């Protein structure tokens, strides 16, 4: 295949979802308690986009992947320790606040401005990838606004698959209701793809990939442009985590049928 793409993946850091998260009110509005001390991971939805981007680039000679990530430098650095071993990319770092409660329009503006300034980026080959959701707080509009600001009209959300054809057009499978996919045809780049989970397993750690990525990662973090994200009048009435229901009981020698009946009754509630 001769079609090559410039794939830009927008992916920020989020606290490792396995941590104990506790929303609190800080001077600038809602935040997570001790968020800076929690280990961070690449937003899992965006991580799927990154793996899909790398797989697509590997199939199309001449393609290149940029990872544009906005977050505190320390967190970006921490996340790169794990992500950089996965797939090849060039990091474009933006030094900004933790992303859970920022205004999506301000975030999108910072991302779009940074992407537009990437040296050598050919907008005619641009596929803008990201997650259609976030493990931190899904505003649900960030990728769309980035695309709008970059003048990209073809946008797809909840993407699970892209099939590139010989003529450079592609077929995209977007999630719709009932576990089905909507199949769309797109004439070609540029396009925005907000990824769901995709179909790829998390790539194994590849030490050579890590070594190669790291040559660019640390300089990228060191020269990361610092941005302030305006609230634009955004305020939160309240912030809460989804309620956990934990009603542990220890019951011995309970017949399997009875256990099954109880589970069914619980689900039906």
């Amino acid at each position, binding site marked *: 295949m001769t079609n090559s793409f410039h794939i830009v993946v927008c992916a920020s850091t989020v606290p*490792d979802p*396995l*941590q*104990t998260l506790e929303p609190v009110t800080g001077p600038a509005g809602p935040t997570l308690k*001790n968020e*800076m*001390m*929690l*280990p961070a991971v690449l937003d899992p939805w965006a991580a799927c986009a990154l793996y899909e981007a790398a797989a697509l680039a590997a199939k199309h000679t001449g393609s290149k992947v940029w990872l544009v990530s906005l977050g505190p430098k*320390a967190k970006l*650095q*921490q996340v*790169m*320790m*794990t992500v950089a*071993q996965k797939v090849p990319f060039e990091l474009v770092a933006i030094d900004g606040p933790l992303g859970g409660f920022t205004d999506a329009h301000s975030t999108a503006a910072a991302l779009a401005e940074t992407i537009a300034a990437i040296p050598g980026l050919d907008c005619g080959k641009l596929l803008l990838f990201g997650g259609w959701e976030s493990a931190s707080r899904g505003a649900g509009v960030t990728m769309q606004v980035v695309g709008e600001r970059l003048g990209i009209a073809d946008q797809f959300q909840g993407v699970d698959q892209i099939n590139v054809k010989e003529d450079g057009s592609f077929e995209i499978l977007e999630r719709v209701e009932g576990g089905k996919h909507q199949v769309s045809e797109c004439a070609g780049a540029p396009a925005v793809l907000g990824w769901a989970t995709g179909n790829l*397993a*998390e790539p*194994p*750690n*590849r*030490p*050579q990939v*890590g*070594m190669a990525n*790291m040559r660019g990662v*640390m*300089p990228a973090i*060191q020269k990361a442009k610092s941005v302030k994200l305006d609230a634009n009048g955004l305020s939160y009435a309240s912030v809460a985590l989804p309620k956990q229901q*934990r*009603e*542990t009981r*220890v019951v*011995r*020698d309970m017949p399997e049928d009875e256990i099954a009946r109880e589970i069914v009754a619980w689900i039906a509630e």
Partner: protein
Amino acid sequence: MSEVNPEIPLEAERQEMAVDIACVGFGPAMGGFLTTLTREMTSDGAALESKAVPGMPLQVLCYERADDIAAGVSGVVTAAKAIRASFPELASAEIPMMAPVKLEKVLYLLDPIGASRRSMTLRAGDAAIRTFRGMLPVKDDALELPYTPAFLQKHNGLVMSIGQFNQWVGGELMASGVAQVWPGTPVSTALFEGNSVVGVRLSDQGVDRAGNPEAGYMAGMDVRAALTVVGDGPVGAVGQSIDRKLGMPDGHARHEWAVGMKMVVELPEDTPLEAGTVWHTFGFPEPEIFGFLYVYPDRLASVGIFVPSWLGNPGRSSYRYLQHFLQHPYLWRYLNGSTLRSWGAKSLQESGANGEPFLAGDGYARIGEGSGSTNMLTGSGVDEAWATGVQLGEAVAEMLRAGKEFTRENIEATYVRRRRESFVEQGAQVAKEARNGFHTGVVSGLIGMALAGLTNGKFSVGAKIRPAHQQIEPLKEFYSQRLSAEQLEKATRDAAAGGRTLHDALMDACGWPEIVYDGKLLVSHQDALLMGGKVQAAGGFADHVRFRDAKLCAACAERTCIAMCSGQAITQGDEAVPAFDREKCVHCGACLWNCKQSPDGKNSNIEFKAGAGGLHSAEN
């Protein structure tokens, strides 16, 4: 053609990479090593060029098994002398969960339940304490010792979370840009050429539980290095591979172990406990079990116990004991109303200098706990580990500048010499025999500790120390005085049928009350995994816990591996061997030494290999 470990099949597709220094395990020791070396590299880069990649700076890589460098480690009370020498401004470095030690107390905990296995001597002592409690500092079934022995004191020290400290140190290292730390990357073994270590082999990925290739198979890479720095702790796979190949120095063995299990809890809002409060306890839930409570800033506290190998009880169970410990009246008045935030466990190598391996060989050096640096008299390991890392960092810089090869002689003349001249060695010699007495009894153990501590190691109590698997007493013999044959048989039968676990049934039968869960701090073991441990294991790696001889497992009456599995990852199962669930394993390594069976009279019947995943909590 290089000679590699015979246990590893040669595979054509296995890739290879050359670096200058390959490091294994990112803990305090490796933090000390890399901090020191990277400072040397940035202060005098021209002298520290890479030989592996000419024209580039020294290529230094560190592989860590855990998914994050903040994960899978513990908190600590430390004198922090060596750490402060590296970071004079440490206290103001804004590391979360750090506080100066303010108030230290040693508590002898009486048994308020009557289920604890106490000797006649101890019972007489307890009775005397209770009789004269009006004249003694006894409160809530605990005797507050009038002073903290000097060897236990951590005055001017720090309480801190190693997870947070590691995160901070790792950040500083990565920011330097001259060393790379890669979490989520287990290392299966050292690579050998003859008796020289020439690098490490990463674990295979894309394999089934038995290690057979599956879809996405990727043979673990061989990372060849002039120097391999081994800091993978007491149960690390690389350290074990070197011990298997090269053996241990004469008279050295790792027979003494303990599991440290603890919770990080959020204390009630009205807690009177101040950050920096440190309590050391002994006497309960069993006399052999030491415990602790130390308080971080923001109403967080670490509370936990050490269950040692010399507690010969085959039904010992860290989690159950921990729950009884939390509820001891002296602690419960502060812990009641607390919330579990984090939980974890690890094996501690308690042989100290007696378990020291060959610290140096051609192409390798060993640092940290796995190198026998922990001082079991003072209960201090982190600062010693850090110091060994610093000593190696200085030694490596010295050798590189002098153009010396990393031979055994050169490493001994630089690193080992520094270590022998340092407080690490002096402390290790004082502590060497300090705990021997515990192998004959708790009272003799305490006398031995006091003797060694007060005489600077000149005197101690002697004892013959058996391998860990022999320290576990046979089930029937151990319980013969406490349970009837019918009770024992019923507990065993129930466990075999997959009902109540054997250790729970045994503890119940011995009079330990059932734990009444409050859903906040007192929670089931499985809930602790979910609420406090956050255990996870990436797919595509082989099981790292293996049972060597199924026949020995089938005939095993004790099954201490199940009782002492910190994450309930080892369970009864339907087969002859216990079942192992990799996704629950917290990598504490307790199974390695909590197995009564031995196929060779030397090692236990359980192999603990390199594995990915484990705890994710960073509040530790």
